């Protein structure tokens, strides 16, 4: 209950928070193809225990708490061999969240990303389309772009870093 007077609508919460919660789950190291499954579980849990959400807590914060637990469950269930390492990584990422200067899992990040994406050079957008739209591995992208897989990984890293800076400054500007 954000303002203490208006009752919260479940659908509104899903719509408003899902980009952030999905990204938040990915930020704990859950593989991309499983992020949405875990996120759906988060919203089912919210639905089941909707009346338990404390009035003074923001839905996004409440959902992050659920997401943290479900991510740990996910790694316990799916990483029989490297379970301890996976749990250690989650711990590292949770600590990283505390040290983060501008939170990318808060605010209208998807809207900010749309704006930043439009500002990217044509070549970068082409590479992102191959990676995320066609879901090609770096080695295949490298073949198409006459490069090496590692060079593609480095290039993608740099594109994401520039997008991150752009999103952070957009969110900061909108916040101010």
């Amino acid at each position, binding site marked *: 209950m954000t303002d203490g007077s208006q009752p919260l609508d479940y659908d509104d919460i899903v719509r408003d928070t899902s980009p952030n919660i999905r990204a938040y789950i990915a*930020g704990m190291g859950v593989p991309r193809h499983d992020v949405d499954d875990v996120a759906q579980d988060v919203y089912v849990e919210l639905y089941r225990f909707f009346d338990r959400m404390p009035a003074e807590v923001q839905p996004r914060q409440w959902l992050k708490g659920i997401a943290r637990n479900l991510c740990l469950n996910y790694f316990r269930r799916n990483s029989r061999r490297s379970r301890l*390492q996976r749990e250690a990584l989650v711990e590292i*990422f949770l600590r*990283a969240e505390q040290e983060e200067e501008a939170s990318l899992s808060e605010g209208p990040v998807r809207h900010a*990303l749309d704006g930043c*994406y439009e500002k990217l050079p044509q070549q970068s957008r082409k590479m992102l389309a191959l990676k*995320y739209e066609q*879901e090609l591995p770096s080695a295949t992208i490298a073949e198409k772009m006459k490069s090496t897989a590692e060079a593609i990984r480095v290039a993608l890293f740099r594109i994401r870093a520039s997008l991150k800076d752009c999103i952070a400054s957009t969110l900061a500007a909108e916040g101010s």
Partner: protein
Amino acid sequence: MTDQELIHRFLEDPAGLAEADLEQLIAHLRAEPAKAVELREQLIVDDLLGQKLAVDRKNFIIMVQQRLTDYERGEEEVYNQVADLRAIAEAEIEKKVRPPGINPWIKFAGGISLIVVPLLCFVVWRYQESAPRAVANVEELSGQVVRLKGSTEEPLRVGQTVSTGDTIVAAPGSSVLWKYKDGTTVRILGDSETELSADANLAKQVRLERGELVASVAKQIRGAMVFTTPHATATVIGTELRLVVVEANTQLDVTEGKVDFQRNSSSQILHLTANESGVATAANIQPNKALWPVNRASAAFLYEEVDKPLARNPESGNLRETSLLDEADEAGKDTLSFVKKSGEFACDIVFTPEKTISLQPAVLCSFGPYGNENFLLIQRGKELSVQLRGASSSTPIVVELGEITLGSPHYVSFSCRDGAIVAVVDGVEVSAKEEMQSPIAGWEEGPLVLKADASGKRPWRGDIAALAIFDQFVDKALSDANRLRYKQLHP
């Protein structure tokens, strides 16, 4: 592999690193926390790009709705049961080397099962749809409430489930509250008959033949929840409402959200929103003036500053004008007759205490004989309390309601019945006692007095804007509905 290459590999496929590589990555991130922040940011942007560009990730909200539909249908259980079988099937598909040649009889049996299994599933599904389904749990119950299943009748108890096809009959003065899995609650009050059902999509339905119903309906994903009465139909997506059915009409009060209210024998629909009310009879349907309190039908005494006090006539059951100056004894006597009959007492009061603090006890409301009052609402300094006459002993029951702000308006609800006391101050439940014997049986006739006790002593200074005394228990939800209605009418 360098640490940076490891990070790139992890970003490419977080599940793909071998144990030794993961160990190296963890050591690196622990040594350089800034790299952990950077990697996390990369993962987040990576996912945001996936959300934006990957075709199969663009319908997330629809996927959530589908998951909720599955959850509602109870298919989680079915899913778990078939998960192992599915895993075996998937493992078979993934096997690179297929066994040479399959027995033609196995192929034939497989073909037949492909036809029979879906058919069987369809038949089971249709059967489940028409069979009684447990839909809600009984959470609260007082008085005599029974469930009719065909020709059998059994007393209903707290903790039991109620199913589609059940008819719930409550005796006068009784109440029952059931809660659906999605949090929707339905409370039935007094002499009533209700039937639970569901449509083909499993959307909730409740038929109220007679009596009073208060519902808080969560957002419905299987279709609108429908309340039918002999006179009208109320269609609800998500809201709070109250229905009162008497022989001549059905009254609908909407506390929150929107409800379509349609008379059964015509196409005329009233679109009612928060704090609106409508009445349907056999002949017509029309908006009704919103009044405080919403459970006006169970008010034995009513006072709003702008109007003369009203007391229910024990002979006719109608509210009639009274005076607390020269008819305090009669008002108290009439009110007590209703309260003793139902065995339940509730009081809603709206007041503003004077700003000046006084440590002497002051009585806002006194009900009962002097010196042995049934009910006293007392302010001492900033502290508010209720004193009830006990059932058997001479020691009164004291319920502390906490501190109030002097000079500010307050809305206080206090209720008691056998087994429960609830007090709500400005929307906050400040006291809830259970397993207590109702004191009402021992209550005696005496005047109803405001701003002092029955002898005119212990004067209270301030303004009492409204007072309602009910012969039915007012729980937190009903108290909230009354408080919001009062706020709407007196902004």
